[in-house]
């Protein structure tokens, strides 16, 4: 047992910090720290290419396809530093979800065609898994892809397809064998500009659309866009999720939230002193700081494959429950720190371009937008209740 960061890792952290200092601009940092959903798309694409020049764009990919070869710890350090420094959060769908799947299961042609634009950030991806009425129940998937010569004809409807409205490509779960109830599901790559695709934004509780409905109406997709053999999507999906066992903890965002809360509380006042010195506020803040720090250790344990008293398959669910609970509490505390200022609506565009004044300081825009959006984090990616079902089953065989 060795619970310390190695000197090498600490040196790596310094290297990352120096790189971030050199490459980020205050405008980009402001927009990142504003925490709106979705974040600024141009910033993300720009930062994707900046990182790619350094060779740091794709820590999730194998080294031979442009990955960094970092240890999980080092990758964690990198992501934390990026977040806290205000680097744009790169889109996950390509770099962290489908990229690794293509490297593992894709054809050589697919790797050549899709990986370079993922590394450079010039092609962004949508993830088309959920369908209306299906909830968390994949077995009831209804979209179909029927082989017709060298094309699949795809029909169906997807929902909660994050950022589909401005993605070049999508990876979709479809039923290639309509006779089987549980099998016959495949993963297929679809050009989002294909005829027959309609994308409708879903306005969210915070007033902005960050997720979409996707209607697929006789969309023609080349046969070679299928990933692996037909009917093997289950295996690919499992692989995809296993790569992201710790991301649902949202630990980097949590540290960013704490930074933001402290920044606000140093400026706002209560009973004639800075809010951060108010005993009640400090108590709430400290409690959350401690829980975030403990969650970080939970993440480290998973990253390092620590021995566990409970089946490790339960740990992603454990992290998600705590992570989303903390998101609710952190974003609530941030709005509480603002007082009635929290009530002003800043849409995404307004937040990026807000007029800053003494009445409306730069730390106001985005806080409530983020709090409202984060009500979704205990729902998406398998709701809190589903996670509890999973834990009971895996950890206690109940």
């Amino acid at each position, binding site marked *: 047992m060795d619970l310390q960061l190695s000197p090498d890792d600490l040196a790596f952290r310094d290297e990352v910090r120096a790189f971030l200092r050199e490459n980020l601009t205050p405008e980009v940092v402001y927009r990142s720290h504003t925490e709106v959903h979705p974040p600024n798309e141009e910033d993300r694409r720009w930062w994707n290419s900046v990182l790619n020049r350094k060779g740091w764009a794709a820590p999730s990919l194998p080294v031979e396809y442009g990955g960094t070869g970092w240890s999980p710890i080092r990758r964690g350090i990198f992501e934390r530093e990026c977040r806290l420094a205000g680097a744009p959060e790169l889109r996950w769908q390509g770099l962290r979800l489908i990229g690794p799947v293509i490297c593992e299961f894709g054809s050589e042609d697919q790797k050549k065609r899709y990986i370079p634009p993922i590394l450079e950030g010039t092609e962004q991806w949508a993830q088309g898994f*959920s369908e209306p009425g299906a*909830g*968390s*129940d994949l077995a009831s998937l209804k979209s179909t892809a029927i082989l017709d010569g060298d094309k699949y004809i795809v029909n169906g409807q997807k*929902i*909660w397809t994050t950022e589909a409205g401005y993605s070049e490509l999508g990876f979709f779960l479809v039923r290639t064998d309509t006779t089987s109830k549980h099998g016959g599901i495949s993963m297929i790559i679809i050009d989002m500009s294909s005829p027959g695709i309609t994308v409708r934004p*879903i*306005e*969210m*509780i915070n*007033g902005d659309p960050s997720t979409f409905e996707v209607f697929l109406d006789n969309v023609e997709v080349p046969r070679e866009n299928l990933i692996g053999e037909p009917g093997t999507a289950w295996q690919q999906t499992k692989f995809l999720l296993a790569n992201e066992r710790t991301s649902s903890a949202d630990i980097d965002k949590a540290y960013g939230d704490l930074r933001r809360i402290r920044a606000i509380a140093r400026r*706002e*006042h*209560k009973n004639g002193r800075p809010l951060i010195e108010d005993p*009640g*506020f400090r108590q*709430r803040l400290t409690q959350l700081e401690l829980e975030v720090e403990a969650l970080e250790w939970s993440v480290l344990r998973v990253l390092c494959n620590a021995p566990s008293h409970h089946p490790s398959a339960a740990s992603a669910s454990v992290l998600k429950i705590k992570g989303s609970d903390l998101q*609710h509490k952190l974003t*609530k505390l941030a*709005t*509480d720190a*603002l*007082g*009635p*200022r*929290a*009530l*002003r*609506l800043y849409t995404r565009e307004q937040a990026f371009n807000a007029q800053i004044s*003494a*009445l409306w300081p730069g730390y106001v825009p985005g806080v*409530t937008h983020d709090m*409202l*959006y984060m*009500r*979704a984090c*205990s*729902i*998406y990616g398998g*709701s*809190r*209740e589903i996670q*509890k079902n999973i834990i009971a089953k895996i950890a206690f065989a109940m």
Partner: protein
Amino acid sequence: MDFALTDEQKMLADGAARYVRERCDLESRRKAAASEDGFSRRHWRHFADQGWLALTLPEAAGGLEMTVEDMSILVEELGRGLVCEPLVDSAVTCAHLLSASGSEAARAILADIATGEAIVTLAHLEEGDHSEYDAPVASRAERIDDGWTLSGTKTCVFYGASATHFVVSARNNGDDGYGLFLVAADADGIRREGYSLIDGTRAADVHFDNVRVPASALLHEPATAATVLESALDRAVVIFGAGVVGSMEAVLELTSEYLKTREQYGKPLASFQALKHRMSEMLVETEQARSALYSALAAIDSDDGQRRRRAISGAKALIAQSGHFVIGEGIQLHGGIGVTEEYAVGHHFKALIVYDKRFGDSDFHIERCGQIPAEEPQAP
């Protein structure tokens, strides 16, 4: 002690419930939110026609002289329908400030409040203030021959861009406290910058630049202004609280219906024990909020300032806390649809957040309560 509604109260509640059911669908509310006012002038006229704006006003101003309890019964029903018109701000908070004033100008405006012609709102919060209850007030009132000039900037003035009049707090050099002034919104020297709030209503920053008002504009002298304002805020806190309780009841109904309709893994969601238990917890919290509301209603007119303050602040804190749990879990139980703009439960949540952040949040009010010693039982 009697909790039963009188016939008059029942009629009031039924009338409001019918109105909400028939006219306050989410689509029309979204339309109102997109309008310049952030609320519906059509609803507003209806409120006036029904006498709702006149409910607690004095008879001399065409009012019905009904009680805070009556108003809370009305607003609870309106809260179920997410009604967002400036009923409480104008016809309760400011009307109370006007009624309590001896000023002639005040009486005239009260009559206009009753008909809905006047929309009066409180311009009190300034930069950095977190609660109307302890705003220090930096705006200045200077005496001139025939009246006053007012200067300063007010922020988070609810319905500020649609208001016809403001009740403005401002401080005369040398006075200990601040006075409260009635000012027409179109007076020279007033500049308003409106913006939307998260619940679809609108507020404004209001800049007062040497705004001249007559001597009669002074509604309350510094010696009494803070006390009268507290009493007006108390009424607002309680009545808005009733609206939140209505919101909570609506969310219980929406959510239990949703759970019965939707299926997962081939069974209605309502058959899952964990979700049943959540609904039960939501009811327990809703009942707590309602009880806190009654506690505040029982104390609202008490001569015992400590008791009143404690009950009002206690209700504010508990209703906001319970509301946050109940409506937050209402969203959760709806799943994805719960976090969309197209569905009512998210709007209830935003209305709750507005309540939470107005007048001081739960931390503020718990602390305020804590400064008042609880009544100690006598030892034998």
